């Protein structure tokens, strides 16, 4: 909680990636969250294309601290026959309130037909879908401008808001054009003025704080929001207000 605002970190992981120093040690993650006023972190596994292994891993992790973590459902078109059954299980049985997709671990740009059953599922249920986005051809934010109007009942979140300048411009354009597109803030680049740009050009009600914890410590990532030259009201929306609306928590 920061100045009366419940803080939700919209982008986090479960699992270990030892060469990069990533470890989902709940003690470390909770210490970092408590140190920075973060109440809840949204986490997901992305290392298993079957979806089930990742989602069970996330569910097990969350069960240790159910008031502090929320799970997102992960599936991959690399195993297309499993996508909808696994999404149904993760949403209905594991009670995950949103979906995470990671195009770089697939063969197809996320505007291609292989992905659309997931969007139809999200649209039918009014769910939010978080994408990894960047400048790679599999993950360009400009694809959001194609899929968002086709599935108006779903919400689409550009993870990393495109990460660098050119894809970030695409992400902002998608948010400007489509009311169901949102921008999430975590990035190792931490370029000056980016948070201000997202707020000024897309609107504070379309920006979500995320950290990529535990790949990155959430403290410098929330520091980007706190130290940005934006209003306190904008900070409150980014830090929690918008996420509560998307997730229904």
């Amino acid at each position, binding site marked *: 909680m920061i100045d009366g605002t419940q803080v939700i970190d919209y982008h986090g992981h479960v699992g270990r990636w030892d060469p*990069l*120093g990533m470890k989902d040690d709940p003690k470390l993650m909770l210490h970092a969250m408590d*140190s920075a006023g973060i109440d809840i972190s949204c986490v997901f596994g992305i290392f298993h294309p079957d979806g089930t292994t990742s989602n069970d891993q996330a569910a097990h992790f969350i069960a240790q601290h159910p008031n502090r973590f929320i799970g997102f459902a992960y599936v991959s078109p690399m195993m297309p026959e499993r996508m909808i059954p696994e999404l149904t299980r993760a949403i209905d049985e594991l009670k995950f309130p949103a979906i995470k997709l990671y195009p770089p671990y697939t063969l197809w740009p996320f505007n291609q037909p292989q992905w659309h059953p997931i969007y139809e599922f999200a649209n039918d249920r009014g769910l939010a879908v978080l994408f990894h986005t960047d400048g790679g051809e599999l993950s360009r934010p400009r694809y959001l401008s194609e899929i968002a109007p086709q599935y108006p009942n779903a919400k689409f979140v550009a993870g990393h808001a495109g990460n660098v300048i050119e894809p970030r411009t695409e992400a902002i354009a998608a948010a400007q054009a489509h009311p169901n597109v949102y921008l999430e803030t975590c990035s*190792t680049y931490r370029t*000056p003025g980016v948070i201000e740009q997202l707020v000024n050009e897309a609107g504070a009600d379309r920006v979500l704080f995320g950290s990529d914890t535990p*790949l990155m*410590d959430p403290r410098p990532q929330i520091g980007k929001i*706190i*130290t940005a030259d934006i209003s306190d009201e904008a900070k409150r929306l980014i830090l929690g207000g918008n996420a509560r609306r998307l997730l229904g928590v």
Partner: protein
Amino acid sequence: MTSLNFKSRVSLNFKSRVPVFDANVRVGDLLDEPAPYRDREGLLSEMDRHGVQRALIYHAHGENVSPIIGNEYLEAWLSDDGRTHPQWLVIPTSDSLAQVQSLHAEGRVNCVRLFDTGQRDLPFRPWAYDTLLSWLSEERIPVWVLLPEADADALVTTLQAYPSLVTVLVGAHYVHALWLRPMLAALPNAHLELSRYEPIGEIESLRDEFGAERLVYGSWYSRLAMGPMLFYLHHTNLTDAELASVCAGNLERILGGGTQ
């Protein structure tokens, strides 16, 4: 000295509560990246916004074009008000060394920053750097060394050949997570600049393993935003004394207590 009471200190607005001397600030434009401020007043304004009193600055032109011309451009960003302190760039050429030696003769060199010769495939080996590193070592001038494009083996083995040379390793990223512990262990005179180093809990872990005296706050503004790492440091379990050392004291010590 007590640890911070985290929850009670987090606020929507932040400014450093300890004196800050930023060890890594870039001024001026890169070829393809204009700076977000045009002059010294713009830089000072950003420093004031975050509670940063002093900054060690180098010029962007020296980073990817000419260290010699970049150092000349740097003069316009200096003042006798004590807020901006020069970090001269140097490349292993006789012209560049002569420029820095001339500045040193005027008493104006308290540290240097190595040009990233990895951009031009010059290995960081003694056969290429001995003249420069020997002089820096003899004159006890600390040197900032970039990690992003470095060859880890060349960096460690070369610096080990100059055991009295004090170094600051700049720009470590999570992709360097496997390097840092053996590197800091192998180079007892090396310090870690923190601008990009974000693996979870690592600042506290490195403090526990190597001591806060090995860590140096730098923002790498204007490549990166100035505030986030400073906010991070203020929301760790570093003691107040450790926080003060990381934010300013260690850099003051490295520079020998004076900067110009």
